[in-house]
């Protein structure tokens, strides 16, 4: 089976499974309204929101147009601060770099703050294969790690899990650590996770986080969290590693403030997350604590190629998750159905670009182009337009089913010949009308089971408007 065909089978399986998963549907239903309402409240409270959004987009566009220059300036600053910058062309290269750093440090335990780039790299499995114990510390990431799953949302990794499911996971994994009670209340679940992870934070050898931003002005990486796990991961171990896509660099601290203002509001409706932190290198003589070594691993993995084409705007993405939260398709099928680390509209745009078009044929098509994603993106990425562009690209590459393409071409050929079109439509219309006029709707249409399996199809009138109009005109 071709790559395209097997992708279609896999996608169909995942979406069917997701739509039937009552736990997932329950969890997604609860989450949806909250994210949407909180963002609306945050916007209503900030009259300058649109202006700030425009400024955020402009900053990102300026950086992308000068990406090489800013990366070099950023790198210079990190080195001045005593840190090291590593460049990785591919995910494999990046994993190798991180694994080597851990090996050189004789590391045994690695804590991780939430990093989508590290998921993109499949970093955990590489480190585990190298004999390291890797512990996710963001509560949502910790939950999915216990479940042996990948995150299903870029900022709420366990959004697909119900409280009951989390209770079972904790009971299963924590009993052997001495936590024998089955804990059901939210507060108690959080307390148990806090207690379980405390020891790991202080004994970890290496701490790995992502970076929301990399600031060229000071050589700092910025992490935005609410739990504090990212900071415990960054500051306690003796080696600190930051993994980030090359597009994360921004010029100055003032630019950072603009982006921070739209980030938390778009993600969770907050004005500021509980912890927004800037880390700039290993401990200095003037520090009482801190890592001995500070490493930044910059990942390309297809991003530099995106710069040159018509998809550059996708690199503006600040990973806020607003598009996921507002997408009715994502809300119906959840993140895992997308098949990779990035889901929702941003995932549907990014996955074909980073992973290849062959493996992700359904993503741009499992979309109604309703445009909500474009409307809410804090940096004005025209997501739904880019998804349509993907469809045009797929067509050019002949990735869509031949028969479907043929049908559309035939139909379009007829549609450019109105008299023929009306002539050909006459009989089927009349037949459908005759069959369904009493009931008003057809319960079954051959070859259109996709519609009629779950919906009636309103009966056509039997004679087209154009024919009726022009026969009336003829009479009068």
């Amino acid at each position, binding site marked *: 089976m071709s790559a395209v065909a097997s992708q279609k089978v896999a996608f169909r399986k995942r979406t069917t499974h997701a739509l039937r998963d009552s736990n997932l549907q329950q969890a997604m239903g609860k989450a949806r309204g909250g994210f949407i309402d909180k963002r609306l409240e945050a916007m209503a409270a*900030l009259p300058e929101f649109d202006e700030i959004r425009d400024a955020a987009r402009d900053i990102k566009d300026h950086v992308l147009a000068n990406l090489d220059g800013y990366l070099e300036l950023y790198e210079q600053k990190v080195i001045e601060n005593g840190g090291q910058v590593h460049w990785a062309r591919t995910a494999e290269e990046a994993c190798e770099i991180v694994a080597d750093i851990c090996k050189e440090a004789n590391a045994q335990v690695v804590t991780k703050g939430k990093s989508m780039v590290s998921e993109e790299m499949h970093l955990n499995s590489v480190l585990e294969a190298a004999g390291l114990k890797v512990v996710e510390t963001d509560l949502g990431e910790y939950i999915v790690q216990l479940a042996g799953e990948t995150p299903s949302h870029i900022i709420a990794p366990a959004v697909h899990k119900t409280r009951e499911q989390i209770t079972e996971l904790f009971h299963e994994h924590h009993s052997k650590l001495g936590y024998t009670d089955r804990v059901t209340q939210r507060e108690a679940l959080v307390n148990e996770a806090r207690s379980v992870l405390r020891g790991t934070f202080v004994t970890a050898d290496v701490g790995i986080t992502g970076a929301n931003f990399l600031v060229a*002005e000071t050589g700092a990486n910025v992490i935005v969290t609410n739990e504090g796990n990212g900071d415990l991961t960054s500051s306690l171990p003796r080696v600190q590693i930051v993994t980030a896509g090359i597009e994360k660099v921004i010029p100055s601290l003032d630019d950072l403030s603009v982006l921070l203002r739209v980030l938390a509001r778009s993600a969770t409706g907050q004005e500021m997350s509980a912890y927004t932190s800037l880390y700039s290198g290993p401990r200095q003589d003037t520090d009482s*604590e801190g890592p001995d070594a500070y490493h930044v691993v910059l990942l390309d993995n297809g991003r530099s190629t995106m710069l040159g084409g018509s998809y550059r705007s996708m690199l503006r993405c600040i990973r806020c998750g607003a598009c996921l939260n507002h997408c009715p398709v994502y809300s119906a099928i959840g993140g895992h159905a997308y098949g990779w680390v990035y889901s929702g509209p941003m995932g549907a745009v990014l996955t074909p670009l980073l992973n290849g078009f062959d493996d992700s044929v359904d993503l741009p098509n499992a979309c109604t182009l309703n445009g909500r994603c474009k409307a809410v993106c804090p940096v004005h990425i025209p997501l739904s337009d880019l998804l349509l562009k993907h469809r045009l690209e797929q067509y050019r590459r002949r990735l869509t089913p031949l028969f479907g393409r043929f049908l559309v071409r035939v139909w379009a050929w007829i549609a450019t010949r109105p008299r023929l079109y009306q002539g050909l439509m006459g009989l089927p219309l009349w037949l459908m009308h005759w069959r369904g006029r009493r009931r008003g709707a057809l319960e079954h249409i051959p070859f259109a089971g996709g519609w009629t399996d779950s919906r009636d199809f309103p009966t056509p009138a039997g004679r087209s408007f154009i024919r009726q109009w022009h026969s009336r005109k003829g009479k009068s």
Partner: protein
Amino acid sequence: MTEARTQILANIRSALTGGEPRTPLRINELKARIESSTPKAQPLFEDELLNRFCQKHVAVHGTYERVTAQDLEGGVLRHIGAHQVDPQLYLGAGPLLDAVQWSAQVFTYFKSADQHTQVAVSEAFAAIAETGTVVLCSGPSAPTSHNFLPEDHIVVVDSARIVRHQEDVWTLLRNREDAAARVVNLITGPSKTGDIEQTIQYGAHGPRRLHLLIVEPV
């Protein structure tokens, strides 16, 4: 991995400049843009700074007490007394904090926090009225672990150091005479998570409680 670096930069340049390297002039222009950077698109508000700061802090589940510089120990004791916490204080540093003559009622530690630390008392470098945020900088006597490991984090805030916008903090940092801080933490309320059923719970991994002692001039 300098080969990777060369190739990535070459890829970027081929996408942006048709393969031409950036001229030193252009690099200097980018540097100049950074150095002359100013705030853009800030939210405007005319609220009095202290009031706004306190209001925003409380809205994110923080608590505070307005005290004099002489009553800092009193402020600490009142907070930990209310939560029945032992007076074992891990202390940071700052002009106000350094001036406190701690009594025998408390035990003070000047070292990094560990997983058993209950209370840390820090002094903020500055505070931001816009969002109710306290700014903590790492330093020789101000360990970052104090901000994240304890159950209770008490932060002394000099009301004269409350600025209007986040960018005002950058200005203060740029003009600092001390060496640049390795870590700058912008802290807004206590630790929390919404990862279970999208409902907020406090005390995820960082401090459960963030209590401010706001010092006003007498």
